[in-house]
């Protein structure tokens, strides 16, 4: 056990040493621009081709369908804006969910300001979208469905395959934000009828600042970054070669043994969940009890506020995150927690602990030792705790 315990892998992961190692030569030695004719350029191009192949293999598609971007956010923006604008003549309606990442939600808001109509599907108390609800929301104007594979806050895994089938049946483009899912949810874009898929390397032990968009061949998507002819003339900007190499290596490692990876993380996750439920009262597990990411733990602790909880844990060497308004930079707590029906006061008291490959049982046990004390201390300070011994009411 190190001196600090990192339990915020959903925010970002470390880059694995073996990934970094593959990247290093591309900074100082093989630093050519893949578009260049000379030997430096050819070496770069070769490395890029390999990374594209590895990425394609992980998604069960052809390298020609993979386009590298500067982030998961850019991939989401490109998919949603690009598909909407390119298919504007067919219709102006988009279906998404109320618990998407802001990269999708705020892009939808932008499109709403520009003449599109967006349906934000509600989710159930576990954060699950109902595929039939998607079907019912379709109108003759619907051109795009965007539903994330797995939620970044509460870890709920959506019925992507079912939604893909409906989208295909209706001839509507289907985008999924798989940023949190890569390495935990097996993806086959063909089988799952996915037309567009976003991913981001720093969520699966690759470097930050590199993502990819899978686009099925023939799908019409407008360009959003204009300039040079890179990425087969669809995404301009000198290719970020070291990061592309890192993404390729990281995704290869990430999909190598998903069942094994999941089993390991789920064991830790369930130990943490069970431990918390059995030691801390007035506590609620957020997200789906079974259909959840293997590394995701999300709790609401009544009567206390999330940032204070995070700081207290941080002092004890535990790094987590929260959907509290105080940590989101906005006035309201997490839109995801509100969407699953938590009242504001409960949502403020949320804690997300996301496990990664290096976490150990020992670390989990340390958290289980410290967390109840910290919660207790904050509750004793809280005016809400005394007032309502029985706990606040919520659905």
């Amino acid at each position: 056990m190190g001196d600090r315990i990192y339990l915020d892998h959903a925010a970002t992961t470390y880059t694995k040493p073996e990934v970094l190692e593959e990247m290093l030569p591309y900074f100082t030695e093989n630093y050519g621009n893949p578009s260049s004719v000379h030997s430096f350029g050819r070496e770069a191009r070769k490395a890029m081709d390999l990374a594209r192949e590895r990425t394609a293999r992980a998604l069960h598609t052809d390298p020609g369908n993979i386009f590298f971007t500067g982030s998961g956010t850019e991939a989401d923006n490109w998919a949603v804006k690009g598909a909407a604008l390119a298919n504007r003549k067919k219709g102006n309606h988009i279906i998404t969910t109320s618990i998407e990442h802001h990269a999708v939600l705020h892009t939808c808001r932008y499109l709403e300001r520009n003449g599109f109509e967006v349906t934000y599907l509600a989710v159930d108390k576990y954060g699950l979208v109902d595929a039939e609800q998607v079907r019912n929301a379709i109108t003759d104007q619907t051109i795009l469905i965007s539903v994330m594979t797995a939620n970044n806050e509460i870890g709920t895994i959506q019925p992507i395959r079912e939604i893909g089938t409906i989208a295909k049946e209706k001839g509507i483009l289907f985008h999924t934000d798989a940023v949190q899912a890569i390495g935990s949810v097996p993806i086959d874009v063909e089988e799952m009828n996915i037309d567009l898929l976003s991913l981001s390397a720093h969520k699966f032990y690759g470097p930050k600042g590199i993502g990819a968009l899978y686009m099925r061949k023939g799908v019409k998507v407008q360009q959003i970054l204009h300039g040079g002819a890179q990425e087969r003339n669809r995404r301009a900007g000198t290719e970020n070669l070291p990061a592309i190499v890192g993404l390729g290596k990281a995704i290869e490692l990430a999909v190598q043994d998903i069942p094994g990876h999941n089993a390991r993380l789920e064991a830790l996750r369930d130990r943490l969940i069970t431990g918390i439920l059995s030691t801390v009262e007035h506590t609620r597990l957020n997200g789906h009890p079974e259909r959840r990411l293997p590394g995701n733990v999300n709790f609401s602790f009544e009567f206390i506020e999330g940032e204070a909880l995070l700081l207290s844990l941080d002092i004890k060497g535990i790094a987590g995150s929260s959907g509290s308004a105080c940590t989101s930079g906005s006035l309201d707590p997490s839109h995801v927690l509100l969407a699953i029906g938590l009242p504001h006061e409960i949502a403020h008291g949320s804690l997300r602990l996301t496990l990664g490959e290096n976490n150990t049982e020992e670390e989990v046990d340390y958290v289980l030792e410290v967390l109840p004390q910290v919660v207790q201390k904050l509750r004793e300070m809280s005016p809400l705790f005394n007032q309502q011994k029985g706990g606040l009411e919520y659905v």
Partner: protein
Amino acid sequence: MYSEKVMDHFINPRNVGEIENPDGVGEVGNARCGDIMKVFLKIENDVIVDVKFKTFGCGAAIATSSMSTELIKGKTIDEALAVTNKTVAESLDGLPPVKMHCSVLAEEAIKAAIEDYRKKQREK
């Protein structure tokens, strides 16, 4: 993000608790917004002889609660009323801009408690 002083008052908050039969009580904020501060005062001859607080809120809310109660302890009511949110923030070596509202909360809670005390005095 937070100064050392803020962290000190967050980790070891002064004056946490309640006062039985307080002479004045003030509660401001609401749970919906994620910030509630409740202040209890014991007052003798217009001097605040004891003060306690309970706070539901972020690190800054707890630290400003702690610091502001320290600042008014042993002071006359008039002196306490002169303690502004700026004074509290400065005594904590500053607060991040997005957290200034927490210091306002502390100022308001104290004012509300003194108001409550005065109301009770008038009613006597």
